[in-house]
């Protein structure tokens, strides 16, 4: 057995960071690469009934940890990385009523916030993000421009976008471009 260094490379390690666009509009956008902790794709088995409560149990209890993805499908997200043992423990909790596909490396979360955040995202998505229609905690699968993403409202002026790892950098670049008129602060490292 050779002793190899096992390092984790974050999906947005090469993404551009810093300040872009308009200097002082008073409504600058903050773009943040979020922790690549865990993303669990939960898929309900046939006829397993209402599962939302059960699915919540495998989450870390954080706000908006469980995000609706499709009929009988959820993403459970959190900042902490999970071991194989953690994972099988959570699978056991679901007791064959649902399966878990680990997507902790396959999906990347990007935070975006600021007073103009709805205007920025409207350049990409056809979803009506008005708060009356898209309340805090609400999620929807959508296209941001050409790229598919799960969008979740985490605050009055903040959203999270969850995107396929391979597209993360491209989406990041698009979001910077979309934010230029308001100015944007792009941060990848914690």
């Amino acid at each position, binding site marked *: 057995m050779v002793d190899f260094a096992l390092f984790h490379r974050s999906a947005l390690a090469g993404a551009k960071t810093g300040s872009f666009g308009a200097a002082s509009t008073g409504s600058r956008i903050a773009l943040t690469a979020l922790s690549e902790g865990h993303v669990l794709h939960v898929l309900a088995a046939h006829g397993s009934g209402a599962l939302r409560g059960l699915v919540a149990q495998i989450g870390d209890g954080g706000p908006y940890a469980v995000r609706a993805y499709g009929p009988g499908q959820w993403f459970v997200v959190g900042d902490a990385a999970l071991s194989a043992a953690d994972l099988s423990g959570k699978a056991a909790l679901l007791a064959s009523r649902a399966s878990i596909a680990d997507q902790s490396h396959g999906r990347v979360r990007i935070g975006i916030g600021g007073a103009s955040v709805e205007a920025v995202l409207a350049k990409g998505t056809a979803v009506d993000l008005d708060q009356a229609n898209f309340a805090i905690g609400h999620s929807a699968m959508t296209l941001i421009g050409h790229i598919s993403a799960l969008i979740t409202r985490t605050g009055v002026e903040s959203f999270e976008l969850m995107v396929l790892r*391979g597209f993360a950098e491209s989406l990041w670049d*698009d979001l910077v471009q979309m934010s230029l008129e308001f100015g944007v602060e792009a941060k990848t490292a914690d």
Partner: protein
Amino acid sequence: MSSFRLSKGGRIDRAKPLDFTFDGKPMQGFAGDTLASALLANGRQLVGRSFKYHRPRGILTAGAAEPNALVTIGEGGRTEANTRATLVELYSGLKAKSQNRWPSVDFDLGAVNSLLSPFLGAGFYYKTFMWPAAFWEKVYEPIIRKAAGLGRATYEPDPDTYEKCWTHCDLLVIGAGPAGLAAALTAGRAGARVILADEGFEPGGSLLAETAAIGEKAAAVLLEETLAELASLANVRIFSRTTVFGWYDGNVFGAVESVQKNTAAIDPNRPVERLWRLAARHAILASGAEERPLVFGGNDIPGVMMAGAMRSYLNRQAIAPGKRTVVFTNDESGYRTATDLEAAGLEVAAIVDSRVGAPSSWAGRAPVFPGAVVQDAKGGKALTGVTMIKGGALETIKADALAMSGGWSPIIHLACHRGARPVWSDAKAAFVAPQTQDGLTIAGSAAGVGALEACLADGAEKAGNVLPSLGFSSAAAAFTPAVDTATVAKPLWCVRGAKGKAFVDYQNDVHLKDLRLAVSEGYGHVELAKRYTTNGMATDQGKLSNVNAIGILAEARKVSPADVGTTTFRPFYTPLSFGALTGASKGKHFQPVRKSPLHDWARKNGAVFVETGLWYRSSWFPKAGETTWRDSVDREVLNVRKNAGICDVSTLGKIEIFGKDAAEFLNRIYCNAFLKLPVGKARYGLMLREDGMIYDDGTTSRLSENHFFMTTTTAYAAGVMNHLEFCAQALWPDLDVQFASSTDQWAQIAVAGPKSRTILQALVDEDICEVAFPFLGAKEVSLFGGKLTGRLFRISFSGELAYELAVPAGYGEAVADAIMQAGSPHGICPYGVEALGVMRIEKGHVTHSEINGTVTPADLGFAKMVSTTKPDFIGKAMLSRDGMVAQDRLSLVGVKPLDPATTFRTGSHILSEAATPSLENDQGYVTSSCFSPNLGSTIGLALVKHGPKRHGEQVTVWNDLKNEYTKAVLCSPVFFDPENEKLHG
């Protein structure tokens, strides 16, 4: 005398002068001017030359319908041709140029066409340039295009940015004139989310241009109050400079907003134009009405203008059209213009009213001539007078301006974009659209309402009517009901006996005689007449001309306009820049880049990348001293076969399949058996389409009883995922099966070559010897002494002893580094998709080059894989059709040149050795080819008739495109290690 600016009045800001140039000549206007009004203020009435006859043309309208005043704005990459001067908001530094003239707009040699005009009538080109046929494309058309036309586009790249946006509302109000404002105010007060869009730079529509009072209130005061209240409502948004250009499915409207087209100082952080997709629960179309020109001789001479436009320039921008104006009208609009002109102290020489019973309420100074018409306007580059006919007598009146009004046509384009047809209304003397459609209501003069008060009331009422269906209690309408006092005149389609050309379509130089000729030559149908004469084409799409043309066709055919009908309204309402349609999708934002988790690993190892769909795959890894890609690829291939290589295969599609019925599901999806695949095993699967042709291939492994892991080809990853979902949801909803795409979750690394096992064993905790982990093994493994869990597959595309190791993507680079480190003493090298391709061709393994949508399993030698015992699988029913089992189907063979020094290309055709090169003698074609460093020659795979029976036959490989002929021999598609001895190390 020409047009000029009055010393007072208008809505312009005289404290803000703006400098601009026209054809290089410096001029000055004011904030509040359009380019058109500023040109008029500078006495510039001749602004362009016409399309065909190069006639001098002036400014005819004050809006979107302008057919004449098309100018080129800007310079370099910002050059924008065919811009309507009437819609350009004047800004400081604006550079405008006239078009379709040489050497200048004042002296244009092209005007010689006017002398040739007897020969240039409708259909002239069709009749004249028929022979010889080849001349049309090569000679005639280029010459005609050079002589006729509009402005020229630039070849330089546009330096500015554009973007697209979505927005949503309860009620979209299109047009901020009286009806639109009233509708927006009514809905806004009720609390609805309202968007009020208007193409102008100032909302108000006709309220900006009229001096009329509404009750006791002047139009301008009413406008100011309404806008102030709208601004105070947070639920109302006003989109100025925004043209709604189309109505689409789902009640989505397209609109383009000019964000920075009104400035020379472009802020690079903002787009110059923004294309909106407006999703509206309901819309009110309050787009107003277009005033119709009158068709008389010389009605295009600069100085002739629409009566409403003349009023607009006078009241908005304090422009006097000239010193002495004649009004030619058949409705009230002419009188309103005369009133406003006289109020401004300008002389109106005559009001020529074609109606016999002209209204007697005129109280102005100008003489009225009822029952009279203007037969001809006189002048060249500027109007000098008109010839009036009254009671058969000709009278000449000196004038430098002529206002004309032939009645009003509701602007109904948008209402007809989704299939509704305009209907002729005798009562309104106009084509009208259905007043209500699902999601759209028409209000105001777009609905045929005439008087100002009535438009306000109509907008308010129609908004009030729709609010309850949107969930808002119907608040009091913003304006009280009013009777429409406007009268509708009988249309005057054309004036008879004109000496000069009487234009119907200004932009395309279509005149009265052209339309009559079309009818007499059998092209009287409205769609044929349009093509025969070009009436209604080009940038204005007949906004001014269509209704007159229909009236003239109707008269010539002796039918009602209702029987003639209209051509079809389609988006876009007005021309749209390609920039707006492109949005941000250019340069690096043209399409997303999809990066493998091993992208940066490959880059630091020197990879040359190739675009594969959205992915960037490493294609080879050049080393110092290698001068061509072949040097690198040959080395990589030889090294993998001798030692070992590592290749990124993360881009292959990966799908996790869960459920009690997952095995049964796969058994139906694949043509070969999967029901009894043991846990811990991988199997190569062939997926067919319903028609029996192969759809995709790949390996699927059983990781646990109810958990499978499918790999697809890179290209078909999304397609296969959709296919699986469709089958599960629509074909077999009773099966318990779920799918999760995990392509991005895993960095997948192929390690191939005789030393691959030794190398991987250094990382993998479990024993992976031939006995413990044989060919087609698949299992989760522990790595680095328990630091990481991955998935290991004993599968091979190269034909070597090989593995694929999948690890969570974020660790991909670390694991690839570790493999390189462990493999370094064993001579490992990274290899790319080119070497991968060479090795698979050497082994006769197929890809989508062979699986090209026309092949069955048997065609590729997989006949035995197709289950004969399964009750059903996708493709089974069609697989036994005659054509699918025909003996002479193209089937897979190998092909290699007789002389190893010669070569051939993929796509070349196979001919029997002595056959004449022709498609009749075609035997098949080369699907893949490469240079095999192991065989020392080009090798290829081919689909050939009776292929497997022809091994050893000499053939000719024929490339007609390059005129290449290569003597070759057909052979087994497995060129290398036919006994598969290397697979087991």
